[in-house]
């Protein structure tokens, strides 16, 4: 036990004395959460919507008011103006005898970038059509869903579950957690171990009577502790700053994340047994863990749209299971019992990785 504590203390000193690592470890989660939360949010505020009616009888003004009430939409008449008091002027209306005028005009407005979408309301047939500038598919999707959401029942029947306003924080917080723990655990741990290989101090540890299990456990403890601290920071920021509800399942989220942290540590250890230099460890850890986490976990790109082979491939990406499960638990408020498949997969992967890592580590260094 004494040996173990001396070991942990030494590792902690390494982290505390290396300003760069310390900075990464402490600031990375905070910066990432805030960056994603505010700066690179995938939500779009102030989408500009123009409204046009197909005839004089259609009350486009009422619909425009409803759209304008949404914090994400800014509404104006297609040709005319809005006096700010629910009063829309004649020019809203569109004369059917001038068909070309309509399509030309809509085209013009969208191409000049004066609006992101134009909503055409046909009161007589009770239909609405949203013409969206889809050159940026992301904005287009958002516009479509915002308008749909704002119109409620009166629009194309879209119902948003759990994230009715499509807040991206709900989406990216689990994703970021998946990423941050990979960086802190897998990358930093592997680099820390390989550094000892590079300097030769690992040899001194190996020739001592200390069992490799103690060495490994002690090496991981501070990173585990740091990760727990990060988890607390992330959850607090997500909840209090970004308003993610946590759905009353903080305990389950934490349990799930702890498992994921151990898994990431195991990856770090495995990587460290495979390479000789810190640079190689960094590259391998990034390629093996970070890229799949970003690309194949559903964190940014929805897996449902990916080609089948990529979907199969994603099954071996731990972050896919973790992020999926965290979404369910944290956002949807399901219990751990509802994510048993994910839990089982993650636990299985952890066991496998740890076994492989320890087996490799136990082999001698040359």
């Amino acid at each position, binding site marked *: 036990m*004494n*040996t173990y*504590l*001396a*070991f942990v*203390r*030494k590792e902690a*000193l*390494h982290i505390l*004395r*290396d300003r760069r690592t310390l900075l990464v470890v402490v600031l990375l989660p905070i910066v990432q959460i805030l960056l994603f939360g505010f700066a690179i949010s995938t939500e779009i505020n102030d989408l500009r919507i123009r409204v046009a009616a197909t005839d004089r009888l259609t009350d486009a003004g009422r619909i425009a008011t409803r759209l304008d009430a949404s914090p994400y939409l800014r509404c104006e008449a297609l040709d005319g103006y809005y006096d700010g008091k629910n009063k829309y002027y004649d020019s809203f209306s569109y004369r059917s005898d001038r068909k070309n005028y309509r399509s030309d005009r809509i085209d013009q407005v969208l191409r000049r970038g004066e609006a992101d979408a134009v909503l055409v309301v046909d009161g007589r047939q009770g239909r609405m059509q949203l013409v969206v500038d889809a050159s940026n598919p992301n904005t287009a999707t958002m516009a479509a869903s915002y308008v749909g959401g704002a119109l409620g029942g009166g629009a194309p029947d879209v119902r948003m579950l759990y994230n009715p306003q499509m807040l991206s924080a709900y989406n990216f917080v689990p994703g970021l957690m998946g990423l941050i723990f990979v960086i802190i655990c897998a990358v930093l741990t592997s680099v820390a171990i390989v550094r000892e290989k590079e*300097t*030769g*101090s690992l*040899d*001194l*540890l*190996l*020739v*001592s*009577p*200390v069992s490799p299990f103690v060495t490994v456990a002690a090496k991981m403890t501070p990173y585990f502790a740091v990760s727990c601290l990060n988890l607390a920071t992330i959850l607090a920021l997500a909840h209090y700053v970004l308003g993610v509800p946590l759905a009353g399942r903080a305990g389950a989220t934490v349990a799930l994340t702890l498992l994921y942290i151990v898994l990431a540590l195991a990856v770090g250890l495995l990587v460290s047994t495979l390479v000789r230099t810190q640079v190689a460890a960094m590259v391998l850890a990034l390629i093996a863990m970070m890229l799949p986490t970003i690309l194949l976990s559903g964190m940014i790109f929805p897996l449902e749209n990916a080609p089948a082979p990529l979907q199969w491939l994603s099954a071996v990406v731990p972050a896919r299971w973790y992020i999926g499960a965290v979404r369910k638990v944290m956002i949807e408020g399901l219990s751990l019992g509802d994510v048993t498949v994910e839990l089982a997969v993650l636990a299985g992967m952890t066991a496998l990785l740890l076994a492989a890592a320890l087996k490799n580590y136990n082999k*001698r*260094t*040359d």
Partner: protein
Amino acid sequence: MNAPAIATENLTRRFGRLTALDGVTFRVGRGELFGVIGPDGAGKTTLMRLLATLSRPDAGRASVLEFDTVRQQAEVRRRVGYMPGRFALYPDLTVAENLAFFAALYRTDVAANYDLIAPIYGPLERFASRPAGKLSGGMKQKLALSCALIHRPDVLLLDEPTTGVDPVSRREFWTILARLRSQGMTVVASTPYMDEASRCDRIALCDAGRFLRVDSPDAVRRSYGRPLFGLSAAADRHALLLAARRDAAVRSCYAFGNEHHLAFRDRPDPDGLRDRLEAGGFRDVCLRPIEPGVEDCFMQLTERHD
């Protein structure tokens, strides 16, 4: 005679196509100061790593204090102190933190073993709170040795502790090793410096993975087996060397500081050679009988090897 501290049998280690250690058999007695002497590529580091249980032999076996280095690793590790050739302590930890950590690795503490390391660690104490990476070369080496000794090992394995170190620090280091040996510790140290052989009880001369000879330094020197002469002349050392080598009676001639060491092919004929060299234009040619050194023996042995 009690059991040897170290015994190997046909110890062999290959790295791909390279045989780094090629069937080495030797013994080191308890309380001996044993030198493994040879140039880079002789297999010194490989041997040390095998004895320290950091590497497994491809053939043959080795035992330390009668514990097999493969099957009884744990027993060996408890009793061995190992100091690698490169500085391998933690540069970001302080001197005191490094020492305390290595003590903890062996489940002991600094205070309990202070008497053993005091002569080595003493001069370092005023730098106790300095990061180890900021010490000078000589200081680092003393700290590394202190860390290797902190658990009172029975056998100390030192891989090239004096390489790249100036003559003053080298001499000081060997004095420390001699003191440890006098306290009963078995010390095995490797070195590329042939002149350090005289510091050891016994030496192994090695080259290209093989042990050329294992014996006491004196016995090695005696094994040279033919009279050796020191050759010098008034000027142009280099030309003298080339001229001596061209002479049919000369078996070998090597530069050794300000004198060349020269051996004859058959019966020594220094007077004849002197006359021939002086006839060739060299002045004040001097040929005097000298005692062969370990380096002479090493060169003789590697010659035969080729």
